[in-house]
């Protein structure tokens, strides 16, 4: 597989549902790893995922996944698994049957389908409930069995629409660990979620959406440094914050330096993070200043979301 067709590519993609805009003029090229789609309800996250997997067709533009399109379903869906947000199942099936049946549609042998179904069920910790009817499952169990179905065939691209919905904290942590592991294995894991601090931890890149448009995309730190109108916030923990703050005030690129509420650090807002870090290095060396920690305070999905979409974007 060449690097060019190891990506998920949207080229000038628009989707309209009648007169209602789904997404508009989307251009994306997503590399392997965990990608988070973030945006308020109705921002086009699910439409983007449905376009990726061929459940809806673009009104304009083209979408390809690893160089394939859904018009070649035999090849395409060998690589792609999609856990949709539809909390629905074929009637009357047990958890095991649900996964087994979908595997038999792949034209594999019964033994292979049984093996893969059991493997996926075990991976999601659904072994005890697999023999019961899905209709009797809790919301979290239904979510997990759908996740098991999406990964059962070992896809290269895993698309997950709000996969953490309905999961208890334990299952949430396990699922996040699973996504992280899959991302490390070189898979494309595309996750949409409104639990920003959770996707923030596992995302290699982020796509921020609002009203059908891609507002920003890329690695979180890269996107953050592009947001010039909001000075970067950096928390410096040190033993003598007053002295440090006084030293920083005189710099042009420092917009604000205020003592942290616990009195053990300074929260700095700067227009130029590079210059700030250079200055901090000089202060440490020249004045023998003891630092405990230096960390960006708004270099995460949540802050990006607030800066780029803000309250006007609605609730995430």
């Amino acid at each position: 597989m060449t690097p060019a067709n190891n990506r998920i590519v949207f080229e000038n993609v628009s989707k309209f549902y009648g007169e209602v805009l789904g997404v508009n003029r989307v251009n994306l090229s997503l590399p392997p790893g965990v990608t988070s789609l973030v945006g308020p309800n109705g921002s086009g996250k699910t439409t983007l995922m449905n376009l990726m997997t061929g459940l809806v067709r673009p009104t304009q533009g083209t979408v390809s996944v690893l160089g394939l399109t859904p018009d070649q379903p035999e090849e395409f869906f060998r690589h792609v698994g999609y856990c949709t947000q539809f909390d629905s199942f074929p009637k009357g099936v047990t958890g095991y049957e649900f996964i087994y049946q979908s595997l038999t549609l792949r034209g594999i042998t019964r033994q292979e389908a049984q093996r893969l179904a059991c493997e996926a069920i075990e991976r999601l910790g659904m072994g005890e409930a697999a023999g019961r009817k899905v209709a009797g499952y809790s919301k979290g169990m239904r979510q997990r069995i759908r996740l098991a179905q999406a990964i059962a065939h070992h896809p290269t691209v895993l698309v997950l629409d709000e996969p953490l919905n309905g999961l208890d904290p334990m299952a949430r942590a396990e699922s996040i660990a699973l996504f992280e592991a899959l991302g490390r294995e070189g898979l494309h894991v595309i996750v949409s979620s409104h639990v920003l601090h959770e996707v923030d931890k596992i995302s290699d890149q982020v796509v921020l959406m609002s009203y059908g448009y891609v507002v920003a995309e890329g690695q979180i730190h890269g996107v953050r440094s592009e947001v010039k109108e909001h000075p970067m916030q950096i928390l410096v923990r040190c033993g003598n914050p007053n002295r440090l703050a006084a030293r920083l005030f005189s710099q042009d690129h420092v917009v604000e330096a205020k003592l942290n509420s616990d009195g053990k650090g300074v929260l700095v807002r700067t227009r130029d993070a590079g210059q700030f870090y250079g200055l901090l290095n000089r202060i440490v060396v020249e004045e023998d200043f003891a630092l405990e920690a230096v960390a960006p305070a708004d270099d995460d999905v949540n802050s990006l979301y607030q800066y780029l979409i803000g309250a006007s974007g609605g609730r995430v």
Partner: protein
Amino acid sequence: MSAIVSIRRFLREAPWQLWTAQLIAVVRIELRKALWMRRSIWIYLLALSPAFIIALHGLNSPLGRNCTLAEDTNILAGIFQLFYLRLGIFFGCMGLFTWLFRGEVVEKSLHYYFLAPLRREVLVAGKFLAGVTASGFIFGLSVFLSFTFMYAHFGAPGRAFVFDGPGLSQLAAYLGVTLLACVGYGSLFLAFSLVVKNPILPGIFVLGWETFHAVLPSLLQKLSVMFYLKQLCPVSIPSDGIMALFTVVAEPVPAWIAVPGLLTLCAAILVLACFRIRRTEISYLAD
């Protein structure tokens, strides 16, 4: 010429083995749904009701009555043409085949098929085959039971009629026409279910078309399932008065044309269904 070459290449290179395995998988899944779901109970009741009535007719009771073999043969022919073909199989197939895709949309489970490495044409073929198998089994069983109950109470003369006379060939013809009716109506309703949300209005239209096709011009008559089925029935029923509308075949065609004619019509309808499903998108909210 290039079209022929590309068709030959397609036939040679297509993954027939994979498609066959997938087809069998779809048929298995759908058969289970069609035959064992609670929703199918009314179809069983509809199909088996004439067999039940004929069984009562054969009993030596106030509900039973004394008939000759010839009379009962005509009664069975009437029940087959007027109930089975025009009502039972028609509505049974309407309930069964429209639900094959509409049911998945209503229950929001169609996307599981669309997310499998499965050509949508194979899905249509698989669902159609499952529908034909289920409806063929239900109505075939009913026709078989009706036939059995109709002649069983005659004793030795009845057995002679069945095994030494025209009985078995008539039964084979009834079962064959039943299967063809399931194929014909099934293809029609499956295609409808991909186009319209509510099958009742098109169902009424098709019922009217199938009932009154005899008064249509010759070419349009050939676009009716009933046109082909009527002439394949082994026993003609009297065509007096208003009944002539249902029984007379204005321009009969031989069986060797009627059967391929019906199958061609069904194949054309299924091809249209395949074109339709290729463009189908998942938007359950709109439904």
